[in-house]
């Protein structure tokens, strides 16, 4: 188990080191998030129209989901240069460790993106997010893991596909939709600061989704890579 976790950590650290060194994905994804948040802000004018703030959770997760695809696209595409994916397949690291490492690296990158964009979102939409930061952080953690687990799996499937940039969102979004719906609802409730009887069901859905798709990804990745 220790070796498994060490191998997963090694793969995650390698991906993060490479990304933080050249920031090619983070810069693009952050710029994209800013543009989307800014455009929605202009379109809905949340400052003079307070009702729009009820939609803020949805707008935020639309930006995160689409920016997330940019990050996830690079996850296995990064391994195609110099055929490095073969090195990972031939290594003693099991496919489950590879999945976990990639998923962890993707989640960290997405969380960085989300946490940097959150203050900008607060300003554009006149939302007081600091009071509910604890709840938001937990939603971000679980929602990001859901997006990463599904996205990492499909990133492996589309890695060698010429149209992977188009394929990935088409494959990921329908599957990750229940988790995104939970994130949108929970973020809306957290920002409103109102208790809701529906919240528990959304939390459960998000946790179960994370568990199921983590197990599925860890189990199926080997078959995907060798097919």
């Amino acid at each position: 188990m220790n070796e498994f976790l060490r191998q997963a950590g090694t793969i995650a650290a390698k991906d993060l080191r490479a990304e933080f060194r050249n920031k090619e994905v983070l810069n693009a994804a952050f710029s994209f998030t800013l543009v989307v948040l800014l455009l929605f802000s202009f379109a809905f004018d949340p400052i003079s129209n307070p009702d729009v703030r009820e939609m803020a959770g949805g707008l935020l997760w639309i930006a995160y989901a689409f920016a997330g695809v940019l990050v996830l696209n690079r996850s296995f595409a990064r391994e195609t240069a110099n055929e490095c994916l073969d090195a990972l397949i031939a290594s003693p690291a099991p496919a489950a460790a590879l999945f976990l490492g990639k998923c962890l690296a993707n989640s960290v990158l997405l969380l960085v993106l989300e946490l940097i964009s959150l203050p900008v979102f607060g300003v554009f939409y006149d939302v007081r997010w600091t009071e509910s930061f604890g709840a938001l952080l937990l939603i971000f953690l679980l929602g990001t893991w859901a997006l990463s687990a599904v996205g990492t799996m499909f990133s492996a499937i589309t890695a060698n596909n010429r149209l992977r940039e188009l394929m990935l969102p088409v494959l990921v979004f329908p599957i990750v939709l229940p988790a995104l719906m939970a994130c949108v609802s929970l973020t809306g409730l957290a920002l409103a600061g109102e208790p809701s009887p529906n919240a528990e069901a959304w939390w459960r859905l998000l946790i179960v989704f994370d568990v199921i798709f983590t197990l599925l990804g860890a189990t199926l990745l080997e078959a995907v890579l060798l097919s």
Partner: protein
Amino acid sequence: MSAAAISVREIWKYFGDFPAVRDVSFEVERGTITALLGRNGAGKTTLLRMIAGLSRPSRGELQLGEPGPNPANQGKRLGIIGHGQWIYDDLTAAENLHFFASLYGITNPAASISHWLEAVGLASFRHSRAGEFSRGMRQRLAIARAFLHEPEILLLDEPWTALDDRAIDLLSSLLTGAHQKQRTALVCSHQLTETLQLATHVLVLDRGRLAFAGENNDQFRASPQSFYQRVL
């Protein structure tokens, strides 16, 4: 205990309806250097990839040494140089080796990394990014990566590619050293002169079939240009 380091039995590999490897069977003895030769499209790389565990045979059986309880140990037994070099351009030479040392669970990785960077002549480039290296330097880094964990079995696909004379000598001496330590090497190459100089055994594939299997000899070494006329 079987002397075979690699055992291949009635292997087939289809790409669609096309059989790239057809009913190939052979054993590679422990402690030998075996040249896997053949013209373009003979199926050498396809066969090597199956042995490396990078693709599954359509039919037949493959075994590396004695079957062990832990499949992860299979990966630790192998040192591979593939077509793509398997080097991360964004990482430095030392970081590349450190990544693989950690994946393979090497104890005292710093000493191993320094040793192998020195051995392949890249010690002074340890903090340079691999993306800035020439093709020859990258190939030398790939050699260091393949030897880093002291594997029992070396699978080398066109290892001489892009190497200059000194680097060819270096790889030859590393393979000779591995042979002296009873390690096994399967070398797939078009460069007959270098490969036949080192090999103890020869396998030849022709259009997916095993056309020749036997010990290497002085006749082959003396006239590599006429090797294919002799065996095919």
